[in-house]
C-alpha cells in the first residue's frame, strides 16, 4: 500500500507531465526525467515484448530523449512544425510502491491530436501509460515512461510529438 500523499504526488506528476507534452513545452518536459530515464513505446501490445529483441516505436535512453527534444526545438522537425494541437484525458490511475522508494503509476489515456502539418486530421490515440517515479532532491522525476497503444502493432500516422 502507498500513502494518500504518495498517490496524490503521483497523480499530480502524471497530470503535469501530460499537460507539458500536450502544450509542446519541451524544455519543461525534459526536466521531468532522471539522468537514467528510458522512454519506451513498444510496437506491440504483448506484455512480454522485449525491446532488446523486438522493434519499438520509441526506445530512447536519456541521450536519445535529449536528441528527440532537440529535434523538436530546431524549428525544422516539419512533422511537428507547427506542433500538433493536443489534449489528453487521463484516468484509471493505480499507484504501487517499488524498490528503493520508487512509485509505479499506471494510467489510461485518450489523446486527441490535431495533426495540422498537412491534412489537418484529428487523430485519436488510446493506451495505457506506466510511469516509474523516483524522488530526486525532494521532487518526483520519471525514470521510465512506457506507453502501450491499443493499436501499437497497426499502421500508425506520425508519432513525432511527445506521447
Amino acid at each position, binding site marked *: 500500500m502507498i500513502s494518500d500523499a504518495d498517490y496524490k504526488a503521483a497523480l499530480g506528476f502524471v497530470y503535469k507531465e501530460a499537460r507539458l507534452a500536450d502544450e509542446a513545452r519541451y524544455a519543461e518536459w525534459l526536466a521531468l526525467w532522471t539522468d537514467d530515464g528510458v522512454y519506451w*513505446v513498444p*510496437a506491440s501490445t504483448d506484455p512480454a515484448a522485449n*525491446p*532488446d*529483441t*523486438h*522493434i*519499438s*516505436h*520509441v*526506445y530512447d535512453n536519456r541521450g*536519445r530523449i535529449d*536528441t*528527440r527534444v*532537440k*529535434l523538436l526545438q*530546431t*524549428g*525544422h*522537425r*516539419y*512533422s*511537428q512544425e507547427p506542433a500538433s494541437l493536443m489534449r489528453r484525458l487521463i484516468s484509471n490511475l493505480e499507484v504501487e510502491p517499488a524498490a528503493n522508494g520508487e512509485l509505479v503509476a499506471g494510467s489510461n489515456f485518450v489523446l486527441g491530436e490535431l495533426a495540422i*502539418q*498537412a*491534412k489537418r*486530421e484529428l487523430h485519436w490515440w488510446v493506451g495505457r501509460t506506466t510511469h516509474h517515479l523516483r524522488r530526486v532532491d525532494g521532487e518526483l522525476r520519471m525514470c521510465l515512461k512506457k506507453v502501450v497503444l491499443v493499436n501499437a*502493432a*497497426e*499502421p*500508425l*500516422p*506520425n*508519432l*513525432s510529438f511527445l*506521447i
Partner: protein
Amino acid sequence: MKHRCAANWKALPENDSDGYHLGFVHRALFNTVRSQYQRVVGDERSIKAVIRDWGGGHIEIDWSPGYQGPFEWFGGASGPLVADFVAALECRDGTDVARRRILEGPAHALIFPNLFLGETNIAIVEPVSVEECVHWHTPMFLKGVPAFNGRLLRMAEAGMGPASFLMPEDLTVASRNQLGLHARTAPWLELSRGLNREAVDAHGRTVSHVTDETTNRALWRHYLTVMTDA
C-alpha cells in the same frame, strides 16, 4: 513496423531513393546529431555520393564514394565484436571483398515498383487508396551475428517508422505534396536537375551527383512505360 501516410503510394518509393531532399527535409536531424548522412549535405561540390539508374525503374543512392572509413553506414561501430565480425568475413570472402563490403555497406536502392532496400532495413510500400499508403519496414539482422541485433534495432527506430527521426518528415512532406497536387494552376512538375552532367558508366548505368533528379526521372519514365503498355 507500419507507418501510415496520406499520400499516393508512388511518392514514397520516389522519396526513398531521392538524394536532393535530404539537406532540406532532414535539416532538424543533421543540425542536431552527427550521422553517416552528414557527408551528403552542405556544399554540393564536396559531396561525393552518387545516384544510379539501373534501368527498369530500379534506382540507387550510393553513399560509399563519400565514406572515409569502414562501418560509417553502421554508426561507426567498432570494438571486439566488430573485429570478430571482420575477421570472420575476411576468412569467408577474402580480405579485398570483406574490406569493400564493410566500407560500402548494404544497398540503398529501390527495386521497382515498391521494394526498398534501406541499408540496414528492408521496406515495402503498400497502396491503400489514391491518397493513402502504408510504409512497412523491418530491420535486417545479419545471419550468425546476433550481437549486432541491438544496434540494428536502435538504428531502425532512429531512422524509420512513425516516431523516428527521419521518416515523419518525409511523410509529412509527401502529404503536403499530395494536397499540392490538387492545384490546377501548375500542370507539370519539373524534374530536370542534373540533366547537364549525367554520365553512363561501363555497365550502361546512368550515374550522376547524389542531388540530381536522375533517380526520379528513371522511376517516372519506367512507370509511364509499364502503364502505357498495359
